[in-house]
């Protein structure tokens, strides 16, 4: 996401505009939700940080639509553009997520898997964005992809294949265009909220309830779902021992069972399984 945002802003910068891009992320690694912002303007940019009311939102992982904490639709209005990496149609998606925004979908994951062999979405997603929002010509996008991917140290071969995937996304995307920027919303004086003093027993960063991490599901992180073929399983416990998330438990007969609410789809189990009893199935997009 950060890289996609950077490619888009680089393309705009090459087109002579002022740009600013900034990602926000926590301590979690690959797969965790990340947000990145791109601003552009003919003149200087007098803003910074989080964009509360974007003119356009780009969603790489449609499973986040059902995560209330991700709030991917926050701040969008009927004139806003919502670009989604999805196998679903615009109509389906609008119905599903109850948004008024103008929705455009494109199956970027298939393009990436087809041309890059992995879920490397940044460059084709940037191509989709640049075309659908009418931000940059292909030559600028291509130059931006080359510059940004070289900067993160990709090989020329991988850069060229990314260019191919980006071009396919760019060509496949419809041109929709951005609406005129909306005027800033009216604000008003509010009486400052006075935060009360609470007893330290409550007002301390302490978790006393048990197993609250179970509440945090990570099923949306998966591209592929590992599936254990019980018939082939020798109950060697390797997958159980190696699962980095502790998402594999043993049932009463000592067969491994995957907790799909917390499996992140890293496929360590599939790679390590001695009798090859684990297969993979692509998760359906939202």
């Amino acid at each position: 996401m950060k890289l996609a945002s950077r490619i888009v802003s680089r393309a705009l910068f090459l087109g002579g505009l002022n740009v600013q891009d900034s990602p926000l992320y926590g301590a979690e690694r690959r797969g965790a939700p990340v947000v990145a912002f791109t601003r552009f303007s003919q003149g200087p940019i007098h803003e910074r940080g989080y964009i509360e009311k974007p003119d356009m939102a780009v969603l790489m992982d449609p499973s986040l639509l059902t995560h209330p904490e991700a709030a991917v639709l926050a701040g969008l209005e009927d004139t806003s553009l919502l670009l989604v990496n999805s196998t679903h149609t615009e109509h389906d998606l609008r119905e599903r997520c109850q948004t008024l925004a103008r929705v455009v979908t494109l199956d970027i994951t298939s393009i990436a898997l087809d041309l890059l062999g992995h879920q490397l979405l940044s460059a084709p997603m940037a191509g989709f964005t640049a075309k659908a929002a009418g931000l940059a010509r292909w030559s600028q996008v291509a130059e931006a992809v080359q510059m940004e991917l070289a900067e993160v140290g990709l090989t020329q071969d991988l850069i060229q294949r990314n260019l191919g995937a980006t071009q396919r996304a760019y060509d496949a995307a419809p041109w929709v265009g951005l609406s005129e920027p909306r005027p800033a919303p009216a604000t008003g004086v509010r009486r400052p909220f006075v935060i009360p003093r609470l007893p330290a027993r409550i007002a301390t960063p302490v978790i006393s309830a048990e197993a609250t991490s179970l509440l945090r599901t990570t099923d949306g992180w998966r591209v592929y779902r590992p599936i254990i073929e019980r018939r082939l399983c020798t109950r060697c416990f390797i997958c159980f021992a190696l699962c980095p998330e502790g998402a594999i438990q043993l049932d009463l007969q000592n067969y491994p069972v995957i907790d799909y609410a917390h499996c992140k789809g890293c496929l360590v189990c599939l790679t390590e399984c001695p009798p090859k009893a684990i297969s993979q199935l692509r998760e359906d997009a939202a």
Partner: protein
Amino acid sequence: MTRELLTGNAAAAWGARLAEVDYIPVYPITPQTEVIEALAQWVAEGTLAARLVTMDSEHSMLTAAGAAAATGARVFTASSSQGLVYGLEMLYTIAGWRVPLVLLNVSRALAAPITLEPDHNDVLAARDSGFLQIHAESCQEVLDSVLMAYRLSEHADVLLPVLVNLDGFYLSFTREPVELPSVEEVREFLPPHKAAHGFSASHVLAQGVAVLGGTGYSFFKYQMQRAAEAALTAHDAIAGEFCRRFGRCYGAVESYRLDDADWVIVMSNSFSTVGKEEVARLRARGEKVGLLRLRLIRPFPDQEIEWLLGDRRAVAVIDQNISIGKGGILFSEVASALRGRTPPPLLSFIGGLGGRRFRSEEFDTIMAALHAAENDGGSVEPTLLYSEAEYRQMMEMLRIAQQGSASTPEK
């Protein structure tokens, strides 16, 4: 001069590269790590002729930085947050050695609770150490401030280390267009450094000696105070020269729409950009309001601040830090600068802790408070910016943390 898209971290690394530093002791910490990654790459590929050494902690890193600077090497190093306070002991020590060097701090709020986003309690913990401090608002200013910091630090009247601060995330990982001067242009502004003392094999020298009794100790501390006072004049001259050479001008403070302002909002660092936009919005509504950005925090430009704020109808200081049990640190500093005459009503607001975003309506609230303060003098206590919605969200999270949740996750 070329125009590039750079993060604040990359701009800082470019500052060190263009200053042609000799020695870079490093220890990584989010959100500073990219700075040392960039420098390490340049050293490895030979585009930066410096010795880069990975250390075992920030404490060792700062010790090495000070020791190298004492030999006359030009030294750059960088840290953030927990790392800076871990090395705090050495900040006082090497400042006392009177060795010039530049320490970059990428602001990040201090634990506990641990977090990654910025506020200024980390850098302000180093406030009294003898390091001078420059706080930057933009990626361009990060680069320019590193170059100016070397001139200031190496100035014969100063010889104190300088800390350059930039906000984590809001600058460190944010890319903006940055004018990169050529190394030749920088050489003319920043000539090679000559050590004041300097070690050599044939010359015996003891540095950092012990003193017992207050006479010696006071003497050396007072000398540091005098040097910091001289740094104010030196900074003006350096900033003037930088402005002439590069066309970008940085004072000890920055005035934004202040000329005819009745009301002033005081801010620092990257959220000042947001503050300026809010001031422009309030101006469009007819409010004669301006913004004063604090840039040079040590030495603190008391006289200039008194001159700029003394005659206003009311002033609000927004601190992105909290001195627990007192309130905003910069509020106290600004208040002390306004002593000795009838100061305008002075209001204290705290916001932006742990990277919390400012809301537009909060500036409306500050504006209303400024109007009210002209008549009633305003509240003595700091206003802690927070919303009822945030409070409700916290109550829900605390409920889950302490009781768990009735709902079970999907299997």
